[in-house]
Structure formats: C-alpha cells, structure tokens
C-alpha cells in the first residue's frame, strides 16, 4: 500500500518538473526587457546593463533555470515586477476567495451531478433521462460568464434574493460568506455538473447491466440500495477520475467567474497581471494552479485504493 502511494507521489515529480521548465521558458522568451522596465524611462543604457547584471539576467538559460528552481523549492516565486512585492505574498492575499469558490462549487456540483447521472441511468430512455442529457449538452455549450450574467440578472437584480457581486471573508460568518458564493458556484459548476452527470450515467449504465445487479434484484433488495450501495460504489472510480480531471475546468472558469461577480481572488490577480504584463506574477499563478491540479489528481489516485481494493500495483 505504501509502495503504491510512494510510486504515485514520485510519478508527479517529472510532471511538475516539466511544468516548471515550461513556465520558466515562457518567462525567458517573453518579449520586453525586465531590466528596462525596472530601470524606468529615464535610465541610460549603462544603468539598464547594471541592473541586468545585478539581477543576473545576463547569465545563460540553464544557470538561471537551476537557480530559479532552487528558489522555487524554497518557496520563493520571485518578485512582482509591478508592485515589487513577493509573488507568494500577492498570491497568499488573494487565495481565500478563489479556494472558497472552488470548494463550494466542487461540493455543490458533485452533490447535484451524481444523483442526476444515477437517475438518468436508472430511467434510461425516459423523458427524465432525455431532459438531463439535453441539459448536459447545453451545459457544455454555454460559456461560464453567460450563465453567470443570467443568474446575476435574474436572482440578484430582478428577484433580489442574493447579493449581486462581491465577496465576504469566511471570518465574518458562514452565511454572509456562502450567500456571496451561491450564484458564482452555480455558474462555475454548470459545465462541471454536465461533465460529471454524463460520466456517471455512462458508467452506471455499464454497471447496472452486470450479473450481480440482477442477483441483488432477485434477492429482493430495494432499488435505492441497489443503485447507491451496489452500483454507484462500483461505478465510483471513473466518476472520481472525471471529478479530478474537471478541476482544470474549475480553475480556468474561476478566472472568468471572479471577473463577472467581482470577487477579489486569484482570477482578478491573473487578469491584472496580464494587463500589466507582470511576467513573474503570471508565472507564479500558473505554477501554483498547475501544482494544485497535479496534487488534486494525486489525491484522487490515492482515494482509488479506498474505492477499489483491486487497485494495488
């Protein structure tokens, strides 16, 4: 068991190394001279050259990459070109809203999508199945910010049930925090729900045609315990895999959702960084999100063992 976990953990190392190399190369080939930016408009060419040497920007690629990786391993993502603050500090200030949004969306989407998929598979071919699958095609087709504006317009502006925009930290109470996240979470979760519901239905259909399901029916087990105890448990591995892969959708979508709902999180920081061409900051954010994504999928690899005792390699 520990060798399995160890092997999974080790397998993420080359992936993370390639991500780091790729992200570093992006900064290396980025147009514009960071030294000139830091020196300002008034600086003479000699000053720019001096700054470049003091920053170590004149050294070869491999030397800089090694040094950068060494700093990265010590938790140093560099300094923002625009604000002069450490990138880790900037990310730390903005991480709470984004993580809150993603966790709430994840929970909400799984709770909504899995029963939808199970129902659709149980009543396969019925109007309910068709309706749910039609909704999932629509979910794949409507961009997250369109859903966001529709929800904000109806439930916040017209009906006035929920706040339009903004974010309240969790420290100020659970309900004020959640209230601001309901609409963004539904908007962000839309495509995610479609994805999970589809894969749940597909795997459930496969499992429901197995012999042991017929046996369970024959011995008179209730439909509910057949569906949720026997079938869903055996369909869990592909579903959990897709939940992990779909986190990429959540990360990409969070950037846009935060912009629609004026949530001061990492998405807003990303957009600001792009507008200002603050490359170290962009680099840090992309690295952070990619490592988060790799770690989520590592966690899911380990969860497999609990779900399916056959997985032991």
């Amino acid at each position, binding site marked *: 068991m520990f060798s399995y976990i160890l092997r999974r953990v080790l397998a993420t190392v080359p992936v993370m190394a390639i991500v780091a190399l790729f992200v570093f190369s992006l900064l290396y080939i980025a147009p514009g001279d960071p030294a000139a930016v830091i020196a300002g408009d008034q600086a003479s060419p000699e000053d720019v050259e001096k700054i470049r040497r003091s920053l170590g920007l004149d050294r070869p690629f491999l030397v800089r990459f090694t040094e950068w990786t060494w700093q990265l391993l010590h938790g140093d993502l560099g300094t923002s070109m625009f604000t002069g603050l450490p990138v880790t500090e900037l990310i730390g200030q903005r991480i709470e809203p984004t993580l809150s949004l993603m966790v709430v969306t994840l929970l909400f989407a799984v709770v909504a999508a899995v029963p939808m998929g199970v129902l659709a598979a149980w009543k396969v071919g019925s109007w309910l199945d068709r309706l749910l699958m039609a909704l999932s095609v629509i979910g794949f087709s409507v961009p997250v910010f369109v859903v966001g504006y529709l929800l904000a317009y109806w439930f916040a502006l017209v009906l006035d049930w929920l706040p339009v925009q903004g974010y309240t930290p969790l420290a100020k109470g659970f309900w004020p925090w959640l209230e601001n996240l309901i609409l963004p979470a539904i908007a962000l979760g839309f495509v995610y729900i479609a994805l999970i519901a589809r894969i749940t239905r597909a795997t459930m259909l496969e499992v429901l045609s197995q012999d042991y399901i017929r046996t369970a029916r024959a011995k008179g087990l209730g439909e509910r315990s057949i569906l949720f105890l026997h079938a869903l448990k055996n369909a869990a591995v592909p579903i959990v895999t897709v939940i992990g892969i779909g986190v990429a959708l959540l990360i990409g979508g969070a950037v846009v959702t935060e912009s629609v709902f004026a949530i001061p999180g990492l998405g807003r920081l990303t957009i600001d960084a792009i507008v200002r061409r603050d490359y170290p900051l962009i680099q840090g954010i992309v690295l952070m999100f*990619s490592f988060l994504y790799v770690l989520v999928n590592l966690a899911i690899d380990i969860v497999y063992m609990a779900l399916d005792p056959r997985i032991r390699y």
Partner: protein
Amino acid sequence: MTASLSVAAQAAAHYPAAPELPDILPPVRIRRGLVGFMWRHPTMALGMSILALMVCIAVFAPLFWTVDPTALALAKRTREPSAEFWFGTDAFGRDIYSRVLYGARISLLVGFAVAVLASLVGLAIGLVSGYMRALDGVIMRVMDGLMSIPPILLAITLMALTRASVQNVILAITIAEIPRVSRLVRGVVLSLREQPYVDAAIAAGTTTPMIILRHILPNTVAPLTVQATYICGSAMIIESILSFIGAGTPPIIPSWGNIMADGRTLWQVKPYIIFFPAIFLSVTVLAVNLMGDGLRDALDPRMAKRL
C-alpha cells in the same frame, strides 16, 4: 369432425380472437437522401442546419441589412433595441446587430482553424508516439506536463506573451488543445498495432511508413473527427473567454467575446449588450456539440450506447 369444430368454437368463445392481419403489410419505408439522413440522425441534422445558417450569416454579413460594425456614433450610444437598432447600440454607439453578425466570422474562423490545426498536429504527435516506442516516453511526459496546466490558463498565459491578434488567439488555443488530441490518437494507435491485420502486413513485408499510412491512419479518422468537432466548440468558448477578459482578439475587431467585454461595465442597466452575442455564441457552440454527438453515434455505435 363436428366435435372438433365445437371445441374450436368453444375456444373461440373463451379467448379473444387475434385481430385480422391485413392482406398486404404496409411497406417498410426506407428513407434515402437528405430526408433519410435527417430521419436517422436528427440531432446531427439540427446541429448542421444551425451551423450552416451561422456560416451563411458570417459569409454574407454585409447583405443582412448591417451597417459598418466599427462605425462610432457617440450621439446614439446605449440605445435600447428598436426598429432602427435591432439589437440596440453599445457604449460607443456602434450597432450591436451588425457587430454580432460580423462577430460570427471571428468565432467560426477560430473554431474551425483550431479544430483543423490541433487535429493535424495532434495526429502527427500521436502517430509518432504510438508507433515509435523509443520516443513515446519522452513525448508523453511532455504532454502530461502540458496537460497539467489548465487549458484556459495556458491560453491566457500564451496570449500574455504575444500581441493580441486573431492568429495568436488561434495558436494559443491550438497549443492548449494539442495534448488531448495526441493522447487520443496515441491510444487508438496502440490498440491498432496489436491487431492481427497489422501483424499480417508486417509479415507480408510492408514498410512501416506504409503500415501507418494504409492501416493505422484510416482508423484514426473517425475518433479524430468526433474529437475535432468538440474542439471546435471548446475553441469558440475559449476565444470568447479570452476576449472577455481582455486577452483575446484586439478590441477593435467585433468578436462575440469583445462585444460582451464592451457590455461588462453596463450589464446591470443595459443587459441586452451582453444578451445578444451570448445567445449567438451559445447556439453556435450547441450546434457544433450536437453535431459532435451525432457524429459519435454514427461513427462509433458502441459509444452511442455508453454515453
């Protein structure tokens, strides 16, 4: 004789008689041609007709009573939809109806270009990776690395490095989509090269390039076509997202994402600025996805049952 008849009569009295069969059964209608196609694949037909309509709109945008989509008219800004401005005007007085129709050009161009480019490059990488075991490990580790950067984030980052232009948007989204395509092609190739007919071809002395060309390549077309359709839809969504957050097509070009970005600050008072491009974008992507589902069902009947 009479006895058996009476038994039959009794039986007839007890059991309801079967309805009489008509002399000639109604002929089974085999539908051919366009009608038959629509009958067999209704979702694909619906998707294709909507898409055809959008292509018409994009190509013949000047004929649909549009005006110059970039013409500023500050005196007429943020007009509600009316007989003069069918979809209203934006904050610079530009006619949203014209902008939305011209915007179809950008979205469709980006969608098709990314689908074709990503398929071709992904096909090449997948073929090499699936057939040359020595390179497989390296290529797939690189793809794993690229795949662990969320695609929208990767596209945003690439756009931050370059100037905003339609070509760069196409390139950025293509790079973000390539890993998935090459994974798919590699999987297909790996399962195909175990097939007996590939062994037979090798035994008959067929050269490796010929095996790839004749035996492997044709079998990747079906899954690749389905995947390309989905990529087309997702590329249109990513383009609109990039433009919406200001990292996509240059603001001067009327794309659906740009029109919505222009309406962002005014959405609470003038929601129609966002509403019309949103409807066009969603319906177009929906049409492409319906086509993808239809293609998948038509090309791979096993998948049709599963998904």
